[in-house]
Structure formats: C-alpha cells, structure tokens
C-alpha cells in the first residue's frame, strides 16, 4: 500500500512508517474541526440566549457548563492548529536550538555562579546549603520519615472515618429491619483498607519514634570520580540494631508512556557497601556515630538529568532492628565528570581503548 495511504502506522525505533505530511495534515484538520465546532456551537448558544424569545427549557447552571466546555473546545482546537503550524517544517534539532537560545536570553539571577556550568548535571545548591557538625556539608534526605508519617496519619484518619461511617449506616439499617446488603458488601473492602492503613501508620510511627532520625555529613561536594571523601553517619533512637550498612548507590531512572499512563522505571546499576556495623544498641544518650571513607569509582558516570531520563547517585543507609521493620534512608549526592574540560589540554584523545564495545 502506498506510504501516504496507510491508516495505521508503526514506530520502528525513531522511524515511523507513515507519512509525516499526512500526519501533520491530519493533526491540523482535527484541531481545526474542534475549533470550528466549538466556535459555531458557542456562537449559537450565545445568540439563542440573547434573542428575546421564550425558551421552553431555560438554561440555568447548564448554560455556563456549556460555555466552559465549548470555550475549551475552541482553546484546544486553536492551540492545536498553532502548535502544528509552528512544528511543521521545523526539525527537532532546530526546535531544540531555538528553545536553548530563548532560554539563554531569559532573565538571569544576579548571583555569580560558584560552579562551572555543566549541561544536564543537576545543581547541588540544595545539597550544600546546610553545614555539618563533623564534616563540611550535611546532606538532606530524599524523603523525611516525618513526612511519610504525616501522610500515613492523614490517610488513615480520612479512610477510617469513611469506613466507620459506612459501617455504622449498614449496622443501623440492620437494626431498623431494612438491611442494606449492597452497602454492607461495599463497606467490607473499605474496612479491610482501613485495617491496612492503621497497620501502616503504626509501622511508620514505630520507625519514627523507635529508630529516630539519620544524619549524614560529607567532607566535600560535588564529588568526582576517583576521589576519596569522608562520610559521617549518625543514627539516633532507642533500639537494638541487628545491622546498619552505608551503601553507595547509582540508579538509572527512565520515564516513559505506556498507553495513556506515564510510568517511571528505576534500575540500580551500582551498589557498593562502604561500611557495616552489626549487633549494637542505640540509646537516647548514645547514638551510633560512624565515620567512613568513601571512594567514587574512577569509571563512575556523572549525575545526569534530562526531561525523561536521569542517572542518580545517592548514599543509602540500610538498617535492620530486632523488633522493628527494616528501613532504608536515601541521601542524594551529585557526581561531576572528572574535569571541567578547561584543564589538561595537553592530553591527546587519539586513543580508542576506552571505547565501549
């Protein structure tokens, strides 16, 4: 079948089997139709409303709903036509270059940048704004256990109150002699989820109250491959610990669409234990304190962040306590490339032994 006549097209890698021109025309036609449909319908609605005739069914709240819906049709259609027109005949590289140029002429902060500008490497501003006690910087945690506990409490309260109300209504119907069987069946899964929410809240509370906060400090930041740093870890609480491990972890993160859903997949590609303590007790007067040496592998990839892909480095504190559930607390770090490109210009790059196969 001719390429431009295909109804269903396939995506093979970065190449599509269908015609780009037909696709663009179809997109423009769809958006234009939506715009015209919205415009004509909205005009008709407004004219009918303005005419001095008696309506058999005068529109009330529904009139404004119609105005909002038809206006959104016009906005979506008009926006679609403009977007298609702007994208037609422009290559992705040119669009990206224009966007980069536009970003470069945008407003800039007056502060002088402290670090060299490294494209696609996330800023470490939030990681170096808190000084440490034993080391230079205190690292922030990805998700504080306090926030997780607050979320668990709020969810538990809302869900348990809803489940209790439903169960109460079902019980009353039985006492009145008019049993609501459908409501009773509906309330059972609500009660089950409520039970899980109470368990989760208890678990989070146990982790927070029994194990206590974890503090991590580092001697320098950002980190560079092949270099060594000192890491200080402090674990407070009131608990007998089976084990506590400090791990250096690298994760790849990819965001992609599956149907209409947006999914995120993470893959741990590097995991090195840099310290581990076993069978010890943490008391309120004596938190566990350990200072350990951290070496970033010489061949480590730098941190990377783009719109849909990322390479994240972090320090993970993994703990196993006797009576408590195991826990994992993550502290992000930023790894820079070996040099900033301004140094070592005498080196030659005319070798290929390091090329990935």
């Amino acid at each position, binding site marked *: 079948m001719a390429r431009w006549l295909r109804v269903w097209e396939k995506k093979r890698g*970065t190449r599509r089997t269908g015609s*780009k*021109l037909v696709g663009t025309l179809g997109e423009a036609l769809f958006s234009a139709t939506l715009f015209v449909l919205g415009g004509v319908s909205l005009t008709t609605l407004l004219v009918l409303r303005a005419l001095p005739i008696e309506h058999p069914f005068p529109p009330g709240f529904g009139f404004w709903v119609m105005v909002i819906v038809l206006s959104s049709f016009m906005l979506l259609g008009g926006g679609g036509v403009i977007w298609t027109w702007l994208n037609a*005949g422009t*290559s*992705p*590289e*040119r669009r*990206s*270059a224009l966007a*980069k140029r536009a970003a470069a002429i945008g407003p800039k902060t007056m502060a002088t940048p402290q670090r*060299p500008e*490294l*494209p*696609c*490497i996330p800023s470490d501003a939030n990681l170096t704004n808190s000084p440490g006690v034993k080391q230079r910087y205190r690292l922030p945690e990805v998700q504080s256990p306090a926030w997780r506990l607050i979320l668990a409490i709020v969810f538990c309260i809302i869900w348990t109150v809803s489940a209790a109300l439903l169960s109460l209504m079902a019980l009353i119907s039985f006492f009145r002699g008019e049993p609501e069987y459908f409501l009773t069946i509906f309330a059972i899964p609500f009660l089950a989820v409520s039970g899980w929410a109470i368990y989760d809240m208890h678990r989070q509370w146990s982790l927070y109250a029994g194990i206590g906060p974890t503090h991590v400090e580092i*001697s320098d930041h950002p*980190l*560079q*491959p*092949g*270099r*060594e*740093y000192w890491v200080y870890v402090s674990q407070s609480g009131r608990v007998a610990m089976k084990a506590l491990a400090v791990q250096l972890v690298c994760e*790849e*993160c*990819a*965001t*992609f*669409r599956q149907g209409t859903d947006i999914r995120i*997949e993470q*893959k741990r*590609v590097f995991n090195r234990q840099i310290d581990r303590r076993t069978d010890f007790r943490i008391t309120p007067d004596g938190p566990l304190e350990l200072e350990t040496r951290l070496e970033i592998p*010489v061949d480590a*990839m*730098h941190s*990377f962040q*783009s*719109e*849909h*892909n*990322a*390479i994240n480095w972090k320090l993970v504190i993994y703990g196993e306590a006797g009576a408590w559930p195991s826990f994992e607390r993550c502290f992000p770090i930023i790894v820079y*490339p*070996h*040099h*900033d*490109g*301004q*140094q*070592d*210009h005498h*080196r030659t*790059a*005319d*070798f*290929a032994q*390091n*090329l*990935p196969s």
Partner: protein
Amino acid sequence: MTASKTITEPLISLRICRPSAAFHPGETLEFEYQIDAIEPREIRAVEVSVIWFTEGKGEEDLGVHFFERSRASDVVDGDLRSLQRLACKLPPSPLTYHGTIVKIHWCVRVRLVRRSGRDICADRLFHLLPWRGAHGSG
C-alpha cells in the same frame, strides 16, 4: 521485459576528522560534509548540528550543542553542495554512557531540507569520554 524506474536519493557524505571518533570535554570536534546527487535548486536548507540524545527505556531526550542552518542565499554561488568543514568545542557534559535502561549518544547530524518537503539525514556517532587520572582526597 520489465521497466524499472531508478529513484536517485541525494547523498550526504559526512566524516569526522579523527579516526577513533573519541573526544574529551573541551576538545575541538572537526568534521566535514558534502552533498551530492541533487540539483542545487532542490535544496531549501542544510542544517548541521552536534547533538546528544538518549536511548533506552525512557522517552528520547535530545540536546543541541551546536546548530547551523544554511540557505542558498547564505552562500555566494547559491550552491550548498560543496565540501564544508566545521569545528566546534565540545562541552564538559553529558558524557557518552552505555547503561542498562539509559544510554547517551553523541552525533553530528546533517539534515538536508528539500523543497519537496522530505528531509534527508546523515548521522555520525562519536564518543565524548571522560579525562582519566588526577586521584586525590576531597
């Protein structure tokens, strides 16, 4: 006897002026390209870019480091097919990476924008590798 119609596609010759195609941040990437098998009047523009792009499980991301668009009116004789040699200094990041679900590639791309509307592209991959050495304590 069957009659066959030969459709000649335009040719884009693109060469990176270093056989290993391995570079380090801050080094200069030199490359040259030439266009053939197309009439000069059929060419609307030629876009040359040095880009990085991701490959893997996630949606593809693309970043442009260098971009140049030439039209017939930009050159003296109006012919965009002649041999062109360009150079650009490479940035410190992102480096070439071959991960499990994320991969980062660098390439030089020459896009021929034809008056008929169909673009033709030629890509040459190269590697942006880290400097090695300089160990110490932080």
